[in-house]
């Protein structure tokens, strides 16, 4: 390997890794706040990319039907549970959040997809229609199980993943798609040529990571999210509703998924089930961060990107094997150096269960 090739691989790895950063941050955020290892998160990323691709081809993306179905189920669940509790006065609010707000972007996309859309509008509509997916899944599949163990939540998450990727096959078909790049610019830096797209990816990733940091540090809801992650009982004692922080975490994560999907669309050909692998690789990054630390997660995700890029140079057929095998030494190393996150979280759940 020459030095130019190595540099090229690093550059390529960083831009893929930057996307994994956003996905991994979403996974960690959801896990810390709700204890759900959100396996279908990668699928949401895939839906975002495929939605944008469909819009660019002038087709109606199946995401519209997904959102409508999820919104209908969630609305019925919410209205029934409110009526049972005798909280009829809260039904209009529930209708706004679970019916009107998700259906609105779906309807706009439905009608807009018949016209040729400028790039920025197609991107914006993609974000708008992908945004409700994760919070609706949370309401349907996870909120009713809020007190279940991490393992039960994981099993449900796996089931949701299979449902999501099956539906994606139905909506988008088995062909692969690649979206139009947002910029075709190239920059020469000595021996290195950097594409505008990869600069865009790295800048967006850094920007959204920074925004997430600002939300955590500066806003009350951000502090409430952190508080829920640190101490669930304490959070309830100050009046933080777990379902509110849960829904917020899923909503923020959905935004990260939409952005990631839009960014990865032009650099990889995506199929209905490609999202899962993206999610899984981001998960490796999240594991490097011990599923607790956001900065360590970001570093981990970048490392996975670089590692993947070198692995595909050495042997592209074994690329995935090499990336996922890297988990083994990481886990061994972690079991020696720290007792962070995962174990403690599970122990805590057990003691909660007994209490």
């Amino acid at each position, binding site marked *: 390997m020459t030095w130019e090739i190595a540099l090229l691989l690093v550059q390529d790895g960083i831009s893929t890794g930057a996307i994994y950063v956003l996905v991994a941050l979403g996974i960690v955020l959801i896990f810390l706040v709700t204890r759900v290892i959100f396996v279908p998160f990668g699928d949401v990323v895939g839906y975002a990319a495929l939605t944008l691709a469909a819009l660019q081809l002038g087709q109606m993306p199946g995401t519209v039907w997904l959102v409508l179905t999820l919104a209908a189920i969630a609305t019925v669940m919410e209205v029934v549970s409110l009526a049972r*509790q*005798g909280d009829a006065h809260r039904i209009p609010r529930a209708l706004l959040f679970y019916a009107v707000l998700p259906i609105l972007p779906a309807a706009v996309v439905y009608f807009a997809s018949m016209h040729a859309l400028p790039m920025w509008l197609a991107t914006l509509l993609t974000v708008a229609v992908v945004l409700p997916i994760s919070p609706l899944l949370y309401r349907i599949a996870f909120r009713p199980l809020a007190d279940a163990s991490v393992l039960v939540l994981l099993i449900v998450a796996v089931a949701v993943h299979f449902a999501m990727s099956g539906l994606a096959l139905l909506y988008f078909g088995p062909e692969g798609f690649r979206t139009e790049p947002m910029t075709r610019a190239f920059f020469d830096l000595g021996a290195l040529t950097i594409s505008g797209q990869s600069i865009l990816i790295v800048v967006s990733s850094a920007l959204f990571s920074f925004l997430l940091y600002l939300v955590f540090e500066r806003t*009350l809801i951000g*502090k*409430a999210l*952190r*508080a829920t992650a*640190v*101490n669930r*009982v*304490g*959070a*309830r*004692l*100050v*009046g*933080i*509703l777990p379902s509110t922080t849960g829904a917020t975490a899923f909503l923020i994560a959905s935004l990260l998924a939409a952005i990631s999907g839009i960014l990865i669309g032009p650099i990889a050909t995506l199929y209905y089930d490609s999202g899962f692998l993206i999610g899984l690789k981001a998960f490796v990054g999240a594991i490097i961060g011990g599923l607790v630390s956001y900065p360590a997660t970001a570093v981990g995700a970048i490392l996975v990107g670089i590692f993947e890029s070198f692995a595909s140079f050495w042997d592209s057929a074994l690329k995935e094997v090499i990336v996922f095998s890297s988990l083994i030494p990481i886990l061994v190393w972690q079991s020696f150096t720290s007792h962070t996150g995962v174990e403690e979280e599970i122990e805590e759940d057990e003691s909660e269960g007994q*209490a």
Partner: protein
Amino acid sequence: MSTLLAVEDLHVAYGKVEAVSGVSLEMQTGQIVTVIGPNGAGKTTMLAAIMGLLPSTGTVRYDGADMRRFGTEERVRRGICLVPESRELFTEMTVADNLILGAYTHWTNRKSLDAELDQVYARFPRLAERRTQLAGTLSGGERQMLALGRALMAKPRLLLLDEPSLGLAPLIVREIFRIVMSLRELGVSILLVEQNARAALETADYGYVLETGSIVHSGPASGLIHDPKVIASYLGGKVE
């Protein structure tokens, strides 16, 4: 004076084991009421049930409203606040952030929040010195002050205190009880659960004695403190 909290025939069970069986108690607005009793009597469980953290049967009426259909969060919103024995602080967040989150239910704007923060800092100068420190790095006494301060940020009308003196040095215990007394001036009613029976009865207006899940004695605190049975069991006196 009006009845602020009325608990009637409260039962709480962990599986088949009943930890609280048929507890009834009442407290008036502005009162300090204490529940004393040995380890395992069900004191903490009772508070958790009043707070809505544990499922229970029986009625809990607060401020004239039946609390049964409300979750913990709604009870906090209505002015009931629990300072648990385990403190339940946000250890990986700063002292200031812990306090800010105390005001979560009625947060309006930064200015009124700062005013409330200043009031708590005035009451607990130690917290003001440590405001940028992580809650997990505080000493036991400081943690208790932070837990109290966080509860005060919620502007409670009824404060449930679970063993506020547990594991603290005598000097700090006295400081904590002095603060508890001073909260009465803010119009906060206090339900105080304590193993340190003497300090609790000296602070309270009315007292209940809880043993194995049931109330066995009750009366004005000044009377209980001279009751031979209470003295024998909880105040370290001699049995005649």
